[in-house]
């Protein structure tokens, strides 16, 4: 009997595992995908090798890359970018760690209080979460982003919009700033040279500006695993969880098993209440099934996989909200082409942002060629100049929105990938019941019926649509202000990578799955601790920091409720994940 079983070692699960392992609980962390213990041997920097969603080392699938990826049903033009493996989707991410806007929490009474998704707020206040934000920020650690050329160009554009610069962690008003991100700032020779002989640890520390964030961070060369620049959880929380005995007094290392697909959460009636008792998981390699019992089970498989596991486990869905309210920030993509050098493919994928509480935000995003091309062709507005698919909006960009492809894309790319600046439009989108995960009628895979992700792209709420249009216009203004000679709007089809709130916690039992503690309303001792637990789309800020802050809070609730322990966030000091004790122990473990 374990104390706690955590399902999924992505953005959220390792947070609970680390926090509770530090308290001496017996924690089992099960991850469906691979464990990339030796990135220098397993990874490269090639898009085909890394980012091919079918066969790349970053995909949703088992360790053995000659086996197919796990297919999921999306009954619309869309793309769900989720990853399996230790680190989960944070292996891909850019480490941007803005806090959620205060306006999406209970009790907010700013002048703009009615501008948010007021029907789907967090069931606690912003100030309740602040100590947890601070705890995660110190642990990762979160830093103010270093600036490269592409950020400088972004700021040049932002300066023309008449907005102030934000110099606080909390976003209070429309403003722009360098990202607060979970990327170690460059130190030593990092960021100052392209000579690879001068970029070995410890001569170089932190971000070397290599520009390969999407292909996985394994830099600086020779650094201990927990000191790689990008703080995906495979570099931060997971190393801490499995070395908890060396850095936490009374800590017990969590056990991590990769290639272990959880197919069922077990439950039984206890004292008249449905209660989680353990899990069954399947070894992807041998196909063997294992069953383990636990005092508490934590689901952290992500927004698409948690509902699937819930349904496949036969757990109750009384109000019908399991899998509903899936928010995705209704992204859009704007491309500016410049006469001058923008440094687009260098440095961290995104280090500058602009926030517009009540509407959403913008961030620059630098991409390598194939992803750049992919991003230019994922549209709901047909092909520019050919057909519009009933859309093709015009505005302060050039021509109608739509795919930039074929000869036009080739010409754009031939102008130089380092003469582009691309901006991600992030919408403050409403929680909508119709955007959801159900079980697919397509054939099951070896782990059971598969999830189906439905997005009603054209039926979003008026507020959501208004917000996206508003932010797209701001993006065009910013790009022009920065000196773009041409601005394209792609009108993305759903590119689902800021996934949120499909198992949401909420104020009302009518439209939420979880209590504010993260515990399932319908099943005792079953918690959800990842993006799916979020109450809403946060107003636009990237989700992982808030997920991890909420997961930390949930870990405390688990410890208090089921292990008679005391909370620690307000009384103890966090240990930073780059701690040398973690490095030494990881070295001893050969990791």
């Amino acid at each position, binding site marked *: 009997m374990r104390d706690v079983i955590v399902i999924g070692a992505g953005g959220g699960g390792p947070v609970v595992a680390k926090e509770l392992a530090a308290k001496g609980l017996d924690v089992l962390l099960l991850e469906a995908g691979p464990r990339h213990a030796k990135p220098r041997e397993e990874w*490269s920097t*090639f898009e*085909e*090798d890394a980012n*091919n969603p*079918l*066969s790349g080392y970053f995909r949703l*699938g088992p360790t053995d890359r000659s086996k*197919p990826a796990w*297919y999921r049903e*999306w*009954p*619309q*033009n*869309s*793309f769900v970018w989720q990853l399996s493996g230790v680190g989960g989707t944070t292996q891909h991410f850019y480490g941007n760690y803005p806090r959620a806007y205060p306006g999406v929490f209970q009790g907010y009474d700013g002048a703009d209080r009615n501008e948010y998704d007021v029907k789907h707020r967090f069931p606690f206040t912003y100030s309740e979460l*602040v100590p947890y934000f601070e705890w995660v920020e110190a642990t990762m650690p979160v*830093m*103010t982003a*270093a*600036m*490269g050329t592409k950020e400088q160009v972004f700021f040049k554009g932002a300066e023309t919009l008449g907005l102030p*610069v934000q110099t*606080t*962690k*909390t976003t209070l008003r429309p403003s722009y700033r*360098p990202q607060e991100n979970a990327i170690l700032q*460059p130190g030593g020779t990092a*960021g*100052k*040279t*392209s000579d*690879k002989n001068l970029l070995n640890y410890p001569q170089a520390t932190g971000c*070397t*500006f290599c520009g390969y964030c999407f292909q996985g961070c394994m*830099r600086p060369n020779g650094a201990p695993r927990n000191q790689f620049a990008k703080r995906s959880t495979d570099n931060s929380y997971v190393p801490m969880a499995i070395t908890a005995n060396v850095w936490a007094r009374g800590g017990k290392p969590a056990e991590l098993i990769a290639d272990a697909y959880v197919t069922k959460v077990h439950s039984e009636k206890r004292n008249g209440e449905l209660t989680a008792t353990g899990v069954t998981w399947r070894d992807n390699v041998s196909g063997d099934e294992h069953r383990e019992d636990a005092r508490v089970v934590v689901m952290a498989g992500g927004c698409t996989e948690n509902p699937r596991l819930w349904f496949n486990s036969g757990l109750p869905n009384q109000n019908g909200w399991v899998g509903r309210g899936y928010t995705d920030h209704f992204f859009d993509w704007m491309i500016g082409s410049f006469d001058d050098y923008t*440094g687009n493919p*260098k440095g961290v994928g995104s280090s500058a942002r602009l926030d517009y509480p009540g509407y959403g935000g913008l961030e620059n995003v630098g991409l390598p*060629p*194939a992803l750049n*091309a*992919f991003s*230019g*062709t*994922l549209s709901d507005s*047909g092909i520019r100049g*050919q*057909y519009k698919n009933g859309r093709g909006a015009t505005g302060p960009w050039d021509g109608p929105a739509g795919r930039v492809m*074929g*000869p036009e894309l*080739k010409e754009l*790319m*031939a102008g*130089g*990938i*380092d003469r582009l600046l691309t901006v991600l439009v992030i919408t403050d989108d409403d929680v909508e019941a119709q955007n959801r995960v159900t079980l697919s009628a*397509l*054939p099951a*895979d070896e782990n059971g019926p598969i999830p189906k992700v439905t997005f009603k792209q054209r039926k979003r709420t008026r507020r959501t649509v208004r917000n996206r249009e508003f932010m797209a216009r701001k993006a065009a203004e910013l790009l022009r202000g920065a000196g773009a000679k041409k601005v394209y709007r792609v009108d993305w*089809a759903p590119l689902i990578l800021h996934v949120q709130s499909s198992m949401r916690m909420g104020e009302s039992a009518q439209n939420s799955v979880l209590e504010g503690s993260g515990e399932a309303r319908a099943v005792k001792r079953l918690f959800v601790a990842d993006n799916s637990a979020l109450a809403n789309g946060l107003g636009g800020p990237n989700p992982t920091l808030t997920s991890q802050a909420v997961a930390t809070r949930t870990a405390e609730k688990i410890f208090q409720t089921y292990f008679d322990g005391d909370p620690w966030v307000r009384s103890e000091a966090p240990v930073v994940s780059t701690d040398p004790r973690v490095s030494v122990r990881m070295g001893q473990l050969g990791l």
Partner: protein
Amino acid sequence: MPAAAPLSRRAFLARIGVLGAALGGGGLLARGLLAPADAATGNPLLPPVVDLIRPVLAELARDTLNGLTVFAMPGPDPYSRTQGTPSSTPGALESGATDFMIEALDNFVPFPDAIAQPISAALVTGLADSGIALPGLELLPPELRQLDRALAAYLQSDEAIPLSFPIAGLLNLMATQVNPLAVSGVHLSPFARLTYAEKAAAFALIEKTDSDLVALLDVHFPEPLKESVSGLLKFVGGALIEFATFGAYSEYGVLDKTTKTLRRRPVAWSLSGYQPNGPVEGWDDFIGYYQGRKEVHD
């Protein structure tokens, strides 16, 4: 095989490209080969012509996907010329994007046979009575009974159907809807014969989810799969464009997967000036901190 009127059967096989690819001008099968006595097969359960038809379908798929990848990234090749957008610099064919698509579709898209098989069967057994006049049809030879039989036997066998074949069929079906003349001409496949604008028009039909096609496929699926199949079509339409583009701009054609090194500089890297000296450990692009601020507090 349902006993559809031979003429409409013939039109249908022409529309998905099979008739032309097998028997048309430059076709891959000598007509005489379709006589069963002339063909041998390794599998005693399959009629001999199946062994002949398999490579034809593979070539048809390749030709169709050539038409698709140059649509994503034109180059100096004949397909880009036919499309009307030739380019002097290397394009999708030089970057190996067609192989990328075939490899992905046939080996990696984890698409269940339980769906692929009926979709392929629906496409091949489908109605031809679309009301579209096909002016080029008279250029194609009339033999089709054997061809039909071979296809049916192939699809009803328990061999996994390479997904590239139904995808090619879908594109060709749309192509002849957009331009009926595309049933014959240069290249093997109707889709590859289209102009850039016509290819775009074909995709417009898929994105709307062409109602004829949905009707055609729907009869083969019970609820709730029906809805999934039409949704899948929308997904496939988008994915074909996005994946072809990803493949054309990736290192696929020159990446040695065992050594994780490049055999040559990728087409997209030369085109866009990416990584002029190959992969790096870092760049000297660190300028400093905006307004000199290295940390913030509330």
